């Protein structure tokens, strides 16, 4: 590629500046988290005497084990169930091309634009009448429903991309639809499924509005929903608040960094095909 020298240098500089701006807030959290817990740190200060013990304190006083357990419980139901439902429906829409499928697709797609905030009030009373308010189920059930439009559209996009000839060949060989689905389609769908799984994990882990409204005990919420509880718990200690927030962020960053490649690749594929 032909790039002229000064453009190249300016480009590099701009990029580096933006990268620094991107990480500063995170680095700033870390630097604050490492200051002595009973001080009011100022700005971005290098921790001369890093207080790693703050993370231990924040972990314990913030009941982080319990919160992580609660989040995990929610994730363990929401993600697999959403994947299962979405794969089945995506296959029906994308591969089987069922009659009336177009209508169904349009019906689902509208759900993509409905902000959670617009539904939260009625959702609250629906959950209340179901008698599951203040339990993790109050978040699990709605999330599965709310993620459905995105998940189905995503999986449909994948199945549309699978050549029909594969299905036809399988059926001619005498495979039933179910067998074909299990033996041929599912293995092919692995990349799309794993990307969707990561996305759903992040969304669920980071979900804030639903747990805040539907679960009154912060310790039964998702960790993100419990951040307000942290703000109350560590109200007098900026270092501990930052340490607590960092502890909550770490799992999401780990998941992202580990699965980054599949994730970005599949995300792009999905978004462009949709």
């Amino acid at each position: 590629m032909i790039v002229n020298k000064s453009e190249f240098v300016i480009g590099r500089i701009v990029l580096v500046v933006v990268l620094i701006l991107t990480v500063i807030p995170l680095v700033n959290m870390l630097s604050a988290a490492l200051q002595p817990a009973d001080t009011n740190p100022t700005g971005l200060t290098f921790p001369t005497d890093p207080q790693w013990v703050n993370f231990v304190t924040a972990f314990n006083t913030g009941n982080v084990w319990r919160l992580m357990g609660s989040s995990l419980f929610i994730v363990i139901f929401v993600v697999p169930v959403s994947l299962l439902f979405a794969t089945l429906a995506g296959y029906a829409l994308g591969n089987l091309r069922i009659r009336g499928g177009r209508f169904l697709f349009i019906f689902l797609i509208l759900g993509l634009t409905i902000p959670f905030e617009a539904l939260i009030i009625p959702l609250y009373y629906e959950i209340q009448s179901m008698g599951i308010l203040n339990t993790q189920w109050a978040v699990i059930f709605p999330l599965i429903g709310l993620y459905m439009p995105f998940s189905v559209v995503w999986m449909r996009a994948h199945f549309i991309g699978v050549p029909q000839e594969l299905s036809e060949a399988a059926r001619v060989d005498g495979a039933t639809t179910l067998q074909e689905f299990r033996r041929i389609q599912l293995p092919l769908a692995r990349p799309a499924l794993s990307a969707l799984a990561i996305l759903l994990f992040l969304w669920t882990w980071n979900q804030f509005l639903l747990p805040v409204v539907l679960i009154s005990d912060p310790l039964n919420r998702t960790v993100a929903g419990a951040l307000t509880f942290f703000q109350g718990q560590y109200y007098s200690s900026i270092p501990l608040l930052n340490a607590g927030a960092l502890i909550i962020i770490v799992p999401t960053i780990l998941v992202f960094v580990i699965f980054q490649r599949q994730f970005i690749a599949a995300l792009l594929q999905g978004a462009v095909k949709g």
Partner: protein
Amino acid sequence: MAFSRPRARFGRGPVAVVAIAAVAALGLAGCAPGGSSPTATNSVEVSTELTTDPVVLTIADETGFPLTDDLAAEFTKQYPNVTFNITRDTFANLTANAPKLLASDTPPDLIRLPTIGDTVKDGLLANLDPWFDAYGWDKWSEAQLAPLRMGDDGVRGHGSLYQLGLGYSITGIYMNTKLADQLGIKNTPTTLAELEEDFAIAKAGGVLPMMEGDKDGVVNFVVQAAINQYADPKELMDWILNVEGATYDTPGNVKGAELIKKWADAGYFPSDINSIDYATFVSRFQGGEGLFTFNGNWAAADTQAKMGDDVAFFLVPPVEEGGNHVAMGAANSFSVAAGSKHLNEIVFFLNWIHTNDKARQIVTDVTGAAPGGDPSQTQPKVAPGSLIENALAMSAQIAAENGQVDFMANATAGIYAGAIIPESQLLVTGQISGQDFVTAVQKFYADELAG
């Protein structure tokens, strides 16, 4: 949702499709939402004997106020068959969640509830009158209990008892005496004019006149303190208790609010006041920033621990020398859920807090507040000359001068977040006049009560 959604393509179709589906579902939803009428009858036989069966009592409280933890621990020590499950959330979340919590199938037995609001009308709170008689609470200070009552007309201040206080608070002014000495200020001010003079001296001397914060509305300790000195306390109380026809737009209220505007224009408040929250202004004052700060007795113990003898605590001075003092004070109010499965047990706990010497001592030690109950009962022990001793004396003085008013923020459920906080944020930065403040608050109040 933090992340992306894939490309969505629309025609004219989907809107119609969903509209039809929604209307269809609406048909299924059937008739009007909501219950029919309250069914608040305490179904349990009143008893003042504590059960010997194992019981778990649940309490919903706010974060940052550990009083219930300490009381529960002491109670379990005395009555080992009773244990507690206490959940905590921020004040803002808790007040937003309270009606929902109370209406749920498994309400907490006891809940921190600053404003009764519609909860009595909706039959969510246990009426404590039967226990009032059974335990003989008529010996307690009725002045403290009155704001915890609500009549059939939805007006507080009379009728049946629906709440009790875990400590009864009083507000005043803290002064950094070390800074005062440096500025040549000898005594705590005895009139509002003297207080203003001290502000001016501090300002001229390069000291912040008062450390306040208004990110979460706490500057209203100051705003109401000013209003209190000009307003008719009865009129203000009527407004707070939602008496029909009461208005916020009175000459006294406007005068008080205009004084705040004057202080804002004079630069007596910190310049970053709207980004300072409660915890920040307290710790900054304790760290030596600001000559005065307006706060309650609940901060006395902590402030003394941080500042030693360099701090004084006194009532907001009246306009005229020797005039009566008026101060905000309120019960740290808790209510029992009508749906509680352990009505007798939780009320036993509440009665115990007011009557057991150890419990009363805990209330005062932790909150600096008076424990309430029977005034003739021995008061908790406090260190002589301490701020807490001061605070208890202030409570007594206000009671004697009949000068206690409730917090404006308790007038309705939504008024603090919806009007008082945003409007005071404008007022203390000098962007609106006192009259604007009063008008806006009254408008919100009227709208909310009309509902």
